[in-house]
């Protein structure tokens, strides 16, 4: 394509440096937000005003900021849960189910300690909270391991399996908390019993301690992929499973490992939202909403190209956008589900931008008018 005396050319990328990848990712986000402003325009709201409201509520408002940080912790854990299998070339879209199982695991511990009957129970939080964390990680890990085992052993399509497990876990939660299920609230409101205040997660300046878990997991993952043998094996499996097998890397153990780890991290996300976020402290009736939010993890993982550290700012941004989106939805009377719509627009833009990870557009000034007489624009 020619514009004036410049030539636009499409070139296949041989390599993609981290800087180039970051630029593409940032451009994708900007493009998506520009595309998304059409929703505000259709609702007859100035998009610049809407975005200012979103960002100022999410990042500069004393009510909005803690919400953003809590959502950030949740998204970062979901993103890590997606990234671990993603680096091995496998798709974990089962964070939703894994976090439900994590929540059930955490509440099972409370149930065992009798937390359902007596809310005022003074439980030793130094023992119960670690147990809840372990149970949450285990719950998620078991569900993840099913997909990993089937993938490794029989090469069963992991996308369909993790999706099926999402629905199974969704209905299991419904079974546990509704219509006389074991975890049902004694008040009978179709939600789980509430956490005894003695085992509320410790807060640091209003932020649950899970923020250290989320950040710690990303740092650990970074070192896992950059420095360790097992990380190298995971990446080798991701590049080419067949070649990895010739190199002596088990094509059974790697899928099982990555899905178990991913599931465990997603399980912690379940603990975070249902047992650590101030003001929730129960498996709420609308638990499906938190499951849906886990899909932001896929987007964060893809935009950060599987780099756990790059996922931190992305998760923070999307956490803020989804919180701010919910806020303007009420304040500016936009329709319900702005955060869902944003999820969709971001994802599809990202898919289109995948193209630029493989190709680049180059500008070249063509020579004088005489040498290149092919264009009809030239006189």
């Amino acid at each position, binding site marked *: 394509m020619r514009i004036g005396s410049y030539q636009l050319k499409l070139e296949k990328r041989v390599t993609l440096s981290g800087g180039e990848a970051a630029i593409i990712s940032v451009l994708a986000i900007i493009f998506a937000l520009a595309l998304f402003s059409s929703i505000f325009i259709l609702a007859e709201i100035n998009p610049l005003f809407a975005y200012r409201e979103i960002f100022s509520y999410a990042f500069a408002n004393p009510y909005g900021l803690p919400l953003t940080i809590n959502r950030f912790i949740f998204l970062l854990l979901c993103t890590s849960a997606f990234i671990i299998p993603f680096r091995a070339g496998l798709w974990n879209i089962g964070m939703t189910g894994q976090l439900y199982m994590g929540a059930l695991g955490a509440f099972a511990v409370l149930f065992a300690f009798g937390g359902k009957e007596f809310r005022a129970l003074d439980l030793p939080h130094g023992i119960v909270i670690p147990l809840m964390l372990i149970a949450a990680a285990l719950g998620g890990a078991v569900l993840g391991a099913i997909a990993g085992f089937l993938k490794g052993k*029989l090469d069963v399509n992991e996308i369909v399996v993790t999706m099926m497990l999402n629905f199974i876990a969704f*209905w299991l939660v419904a079974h546990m908390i509704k219509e006389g299920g074991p975890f049902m609230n004694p008040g009978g409101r179709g939600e789980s019993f509430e956490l005894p205040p003695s085992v509320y997660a410790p807060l640091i300046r209003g932020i649950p301690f899970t923020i250290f878990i989320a950040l710690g997991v990303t740092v650990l993952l970074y070192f896992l992929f950059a420095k360790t043998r097992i990380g190298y094996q995971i990446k080798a499996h991701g590049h080419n499973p067949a070649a990895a097998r010739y190199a002596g890397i088990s094509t059974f153990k790697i899928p099982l490992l990555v899905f178990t780890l991913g599931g465990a991290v997603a399980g912690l996300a379940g603990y975070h939202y249902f047992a650590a976020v101030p003001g929730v402290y129960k498996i709420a009736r609308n638990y499906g909403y938190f499951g849906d939010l886990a899909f932001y993890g896929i987007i964060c993982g893809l935009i950060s190209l599987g780099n756990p550290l790059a996922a931190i700012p992305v998760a923070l941004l999307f956490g803020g956008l989804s919180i701010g989106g919910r806020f303007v939805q009420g304040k500016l009377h936009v329709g319900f*589900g702005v955060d869902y*719509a944003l*999820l*969709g627009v971001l994802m599809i833009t990202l898919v289109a931008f995948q193209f630029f990870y493989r190709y680049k557009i180059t500008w070249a000034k063509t020579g004088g008018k005489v040498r290149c007489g092919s264009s009809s624009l030239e006189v």
Partner: protein
Amino acid sequence: MWEFILRSLEASTIFTFAALGELVDQRSGVLNVGIEGVMLFGATLGFITAQSTESYLLGFLVGTAIGGLLGFLHGFFSVTLGVDQVVAGMGIWILGFGLTTYIGCPYTGPLGMERIPTILGFSPFFYAGIALAVVSWFVLSKTSLGLRIRSVGENPSVAEVSGIDVTKTRYLCTTIGGMLAGFSGAIYALFYNPVWNYNFLMGWGFIALALVFFSMWNPLILLGGSLLFGTLWQLSLNPQLVLPGVLSRYIWRTVPFVITIGVLLLISTKWFRTRWGAARPEALARPYVKE
């Protein structure tokens, strides 16, 4: 009981249409994991159109058209841009899930139109579904167009050499596949369960995707599979018909998903693969780049 059988057949019709679309898609070598998203779009826009124009015909037309458009978009991503087809399919699904939640929300509630008339107890879609399965079987295995589609799915470079336009064939298949998925979504929202609620499909599209794998890419086996899953789905909604009072109704809802995993497991065993594994289109999910 008769009512139950009827409902099961209606449910299997929805699976039939969506899975047939995906089958055509995959036969040409393109994998679309996002049919649930296409179905959600077809259902939501079909529902809105039908409710605001009071015309079923327009509802189905719009549902099918948006499905075709999304199928075309998937073709654009996976054929022209050469994006990883799983990523593209995920994109279509999350787009459908996200945007329809936003678009459809003001329309939450029942459709409020007279029900579509039935022929001998069955909806017209039931007959159409069976006919379509037979027609697609015939076209795919007996006609030159079918040969063209299959060869593109098996070995695109050989097909290209023998004078077949790979790009055009794949676009044709992804668009038709999308139209069928959109139509099946419209059947759900306009006939099977004419009440709009957010993300109401809850897995229909993903089960349809799995059905294609079970069917060994044969439309007639697929028809049998959708009958089985239609019945299973209906059974999971009405467990009292078989085992009244056993387990909670929520546990029963997991049954179709558990069985899907079970069947996937079965067809992935070595025993099965060595016997029938060759049915899988060779170039499935692999982008074709002309040298």
